């Protein structure tokens, strides 16, 4: 698919030239960017939540459900960091538990049954690395998403709107397209973890960030993502940009046959 860029009031290239990777990391983690809650309110005002993984629980770090988008039914899934401290603790600051990933799989399977498009909005530091998560099969939960979501014959588009941390983010970004907001990041590991593993020095964060190719511009040049969505300070404008992008991309994907959708998805990852 052709690389596209949504250019706002001044070009992304100019912005990209004037920032270093660490600026992107800081921006991606800042509180000023749009939240999952806002995205649902602004883009999907009739959002109807569907709770639970149907197996063991309902992970509050993943919020998913049904909505209409330009009159057609869609499945919407967002990560959620929470607002109050108590909420944030429950949601592990937006890091899903295995049951969160299993909820996503249940909702995507359900969407595929009715050929309903799926939009995933991702802002997570990664899968929750806790004791309970290990015991409940965090690895297996992510793996099953990669294995099964990849085969669901319905358009699946992911938008990264903050941090995209490792396998925990990939499990929500294994569909047809991945778009990133200008101030978001996507990486194999946090730059802190990267610096501590490779250089045994967690203070070399900025250097790690610049080496890792985690900015939207770097990822676009590596073909890891389809494109970048312009992100001015006004959240209403950000949401409008996302909406426009989703409309365009969805129309393209809906014009394809199921075989074509799956074939392209296979090729999307096969090239790496």
């Amino acid at each position, binding site marked *: 698919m052709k690389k596209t860029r949504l250019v706002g009031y001044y070009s992304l290239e100019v912005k990209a030239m004037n920032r270093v990777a660490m600026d992107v990391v800081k921006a991606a983690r800042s509180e000023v960017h749009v939240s999952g809650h806002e995205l649902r309110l602004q883009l999907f005002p009739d959002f109807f939540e569907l709770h639970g993984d149907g197996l063991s629980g309902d992970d509050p770090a993943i919020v998913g459900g049904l909505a209409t988008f330009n009159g057609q039914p869609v499945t919407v899934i967002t990560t959620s960091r929470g607002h109050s401290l108590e909420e944030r603790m429950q949601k592990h600051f937006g890091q899903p538990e295995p049951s969160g990933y299993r909820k996503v799989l249940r909702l995507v399977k359900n969407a595929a049954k009715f050929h309903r498009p799926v939009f995933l909005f991702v802002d997570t530091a990664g899968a929750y*690395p806790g004791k309970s998560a290990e015991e409940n099969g965090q690895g*297996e939960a992510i793996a099953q998403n990669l294995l099964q979501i990849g085969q669901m014959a319905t358009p699946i588009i992911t938008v990264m709107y903050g941090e995209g941390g490792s396998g925990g983010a990939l499990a929500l970004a294994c569909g047809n397209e991945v778009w990133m907001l200008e101030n978001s990041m996507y990486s*194999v590991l946090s730059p802190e973890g990267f610096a501590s593993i490779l250089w045994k020095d967690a203070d070399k964060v900025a250097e790690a960030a610049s080496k890792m190719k985690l900015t939207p511009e770097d990822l676009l040049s590596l073909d890891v993502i389809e494109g970048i969505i312009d992100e001015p300070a006004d959240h209403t404008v950000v949401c409008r940009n996302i909406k426009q992008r989703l409309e365009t991309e969805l129309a393209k994907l809906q014009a394809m046959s199921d075989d074509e959708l799956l074939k392209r998805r296979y090729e999307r990852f096969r090239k790496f």
Partner: protein
Amino acid sequence: MKLYQHKNTPTALHIKADKAADDRVPDGLIRKCPKCGTEIFTNQLDEYLTCPNCDYGFRLAAKKRVAWLVDDFEEWDQDIVPSDPLEFPGYKQKVAKAHKNSGLGESVLTGLAHIKHQAFALGIMDPTFIMGSLGQMTGEKLTRLFEKATVEKLPVVLFTASGGARMQEGILSLMQMAKVSNAVAKHSQAGLLYIVVLTDPTTGGVTASFATEGDITLAEPHAMVGFAGRRVIEQTIHEKIAPDLQDAENVLKHGFIDHIVKRQNEKDTLSWLLQFGSESNE
């Protein structure tokens, strides 16, 4: 004061004496089992490299494993070597060392194998090759293994051993998780059998992809199987975790492993499973 300064207190002398004793033991004469602590003379370990006390399987190079595992083996894609997509400083030297250690081009050995005249596609990850980490070309070899097995209607047996994603290859290492998973899915859709054997250690991005996508999941005794690292878990929940949290036995108890098989029995077990684990595998 003077005694202390001259380091000739009884304690210091004892330490000195002990150090000298250690020096007299040649390197590698004794190996200690990391699980049960039993000290074993290296020359008592046979080709299986297992602890005689607890059956823990020591980390084993892929080429050493294949030697006793199968009746014959034809290697595929042996000329594939790591890419260096981030041009990471010092990575080339690390790779050179890994080639020397393991005799492999990448961190997984793949090919066509037979046990008792049953053909199957075999992959063995090598913990001596940058900790079996999942590089771009590791993912490529594994994807080709599944693709070829799908075309040739072969079952796949994969031995996993990995510290997870290969950091030096950044995001392209992460993408391998999805790439290989998609190839596993195609193989599965063709009605073909996929057996995983989890060996010590299977962690991170490998656990979170093809290691937990098999039809049948076996593990070696006391193999470490987990997603997050122990230190990260402890820092997250602010408490110490049980030493056996990520032992294969505990993972089995939680429902993610079918059977624990010791190395000496792997060949027979695989032979039986390949024969009866699926009807379409002729």
